[in-house]
């Protein structure tokens, strides 16, 4: 995976995010204090936010280019996103949540990615027994795994994880970290995960990049 940010600028009130970087590798950690722009950067990649200017390119696909008015719609980006608030659909069951995006990526802007069955993903993430339950009946750790499974089943070419280990107790952190490592090994999808904790940043392997005050330090 190669992700290029060129002259990217995003203003959110008094906060300005500026990124000029080239990220590559199967797993990248973005580490920085709260308010440094980590989530905004993920949302720029996912297309949830639009920069005022700049180019964002994922491999050979231009996701955003404000200079030639390119902004690939969310549904054509094939990017799996696990936000901090998870964004699970409370009116649907675990199975319905996880299958929401399966086979739905239409439009063909990006090439088809490999897809997996519900059973395969649910088995790896240990959520098979929860399939018919409503998501609000689950614990935080279970919800996190469902959200991860939902992102995987949509067949993404890149997985964005926003603080996947925050708000979890130590045992649960170890468990979720184990699941993330399994996802990395079994499904082989490139990942960018953000955290404010240095130790967590190193947990999944790969380079750790630091963000502060809206800029990304690329070593």
């Amino acid at each position, binding site marked *: 995976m190669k992700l290029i940010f060129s002259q990217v600028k995003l203003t959110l009130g008094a906060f300005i995010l500026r990124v000029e970087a080239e990220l590559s590798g199967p797993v990248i950690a973005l580490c920085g204090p709260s308010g440094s722009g980590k989530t905004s950067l993920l949302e720029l990649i996912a297309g*949830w936010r639009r920069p005022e200017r700049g180019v964002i390119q994922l491999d050979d696909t231009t996701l955003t280019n404000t200079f030639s008015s390119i902004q690939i719609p969310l*549904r054509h980006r094939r990017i799996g*996103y696990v*936000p901090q608030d998870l*964004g699970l*659909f409370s009116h649907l069951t675990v199975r319905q949540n996880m299958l929401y995006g399966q086979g*739905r990526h*239409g439009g063909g802007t990006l090439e088809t990615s490999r897809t997996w069955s519900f059973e395969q993903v649910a088995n790896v993430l240990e959520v098979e027994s929860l399939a018919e339950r409503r998501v609000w009946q689950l614990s935080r750790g279970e919800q996190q795994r469902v959200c991860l499974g939902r*992102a995987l089943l*949509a067949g993404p070419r890149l997985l964005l994880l926003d603080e996947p280990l925050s708000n979890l107790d130590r045992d649960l952190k170890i468990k979720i970290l184990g699941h993330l490592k399994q996802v990395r090994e079994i499904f082989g999808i490139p990942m960018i995960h953000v955290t404010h904790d240095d130790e967590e940043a190193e947990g999944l392997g790969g380079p750790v990049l630091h963000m502060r005050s809206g800029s990304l330090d690329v070593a």
Partner: protein
Amino acid sequence: MNLEEWQITAFTAWVAALSTLGILPFGLATAWCLARGDWPGKSLVETLVAMPLVMPPVATGLILLDVMGRRGWLGGWLHDSLGFDVAFTWRAVWMALGVMSFPLLVRSARVAFEQVDPRLEKMAGTLGAGPWRVFVSITLPLAGRGILAGVLLAFARALGEFGATIMVAGNIPGKTTTLALAIFEHVQLGEDAAAERLLAVSVALAFSSVWFGQWLMRRQRFDS
């Protein structure tokens, strides 16, 4: 209750239900547009939508008559070219009830849409859903109870509509007489017992609609 009273009750409930159904697509579209983002002319649309709530109903009725009557620009054209009359028919009742209950539907649906977290809609998009699928599978179900409460409120408002109806549809027995018009007529003629019977029916219908709507809203609050 005699046969005529049953007929008036059935006609009122039927035309109120039909008018609520008729305004539903426009009401939901308007509510969704008002709930999502800012756009030029939004405050003008908000004001226009609220007008039937604050204007005297007879004034709204007069506007409808000016437009839809045989001498009105639209009603005249419909009569001359299609031989189709609206004013002083059941269609005028349908239209008056729809126009008068429209603001209530839009207000409830707008609040319901505003309560749906836009991030969930973005998430659905990220998972590959197009705008229509996002609306049908995420926005609508999550706003569903609030919308249903708005539908019931609009229906209850339509059941009791008087001023606009009498202006544009008149009070033609067997054709345009609704519960509210019949109650008024019975009181005018000194037929107190009949008026009281229809009053009881009106209260029962309105109470059960509003109560059911409130119950749904409470359940939604507890669920979320």
